[in-house]
């Protein structure tokens, strides 16, 4: 049994430990902010929206820090908050079904670039694309597909992490990623060589 002084001491120690854990958590979360912003910037159309989304994500993360289990994937936990907030912000109202016919295969963009600009310099054929063209093409990809591309190809999340973040089965991540990259390449071909994909 504890003596009369033991309980306040235990409480004080618990409060101090909790404060220390919270500070550590907040530091770790802040260290991830560049990565979080990089993903957010490509999930929404403008820089302002990305900044708002990241701020809201951090405000919520700091408020709900107790729901994070130490030792689990903090980056994925944060990104789950971010994607849920993005849905809450009504982005899904813009949802339009992707009715385009099955896109071209994976070699399509290379073939198109080689056909239209010659194949002598195939090692650096990617340099025929412009940075602005890539950003424009990515923004034209329907968002369900774009989310998967942004998380895996820009955010460096695994298929499994992306599935957890988007709350969809891993097979759906793989198919959205696969199809989304093909759509991206069709869009890039259109931007780069003015071809209807």
């Amino acid at each position, binding site marked *: 049994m504890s003596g009369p002084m033991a309980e306040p001491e235990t409480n004080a120690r618990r409060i101090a430990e909790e404060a220390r854990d919270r500070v550590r958590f907040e530091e770790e979360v802040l260290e991830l*902010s560049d990565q979080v912003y990089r993903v957010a910037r490509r999930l929404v159309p403008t820089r302002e929206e990305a*900044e708002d989304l990241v*701020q809201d994500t951090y405000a919520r993360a700091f408020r709900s820090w107790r729901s994070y289990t130490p030792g689990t994937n903090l980056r994925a936990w944060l990104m789950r908050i971010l994607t849920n907030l993005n849905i809450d912000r009504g982005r899904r109202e813009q949802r339009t079904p992707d009715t385009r016919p099955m896109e071209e295969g*994976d070699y399509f963009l290379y073939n198109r670039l080689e056909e239209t600009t010659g194949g002598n310099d195939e090692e650096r054929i990617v340099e025929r*694309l412009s*940075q602005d063209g*890539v950003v424009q093409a990515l923004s034209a990809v329907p968002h369900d597909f774009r989310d998967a591309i942004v998380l895996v190809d*820009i955010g460096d999340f695994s298929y499994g992490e992306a599935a957890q973040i988007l709350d969809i089965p891993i097979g759906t991540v793989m198919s959205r990623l696969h199809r989304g990259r093909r759509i991206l*390449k069709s869009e890039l071909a259109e931007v780069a060589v003015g071809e209807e994909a």
Partner: protein
Amino acid sequence: MGFESICEKCEEMLQPYLDRELNETERREAEGHLNGCGYCSKRYRFEEDLRRFVRSACDEPMPAELKAKLASLRTPLL
């Protein structure tokens, strides 16, 4: 299986190969074909270049003010 259909299969394996999501047998099959097929290996290299290019093109640094704002959202210490 004709050469063209092997290349078609190789095209199908391009994304899971680069994502390291092929099983061992499939990976060996893809690499076996890539070693002898300039047509496919050029296109695999291009895909790798393209992914790097997409990533770097989309990399917009976080504004410094935003970083400061995030830090200010921390719970104040007493």
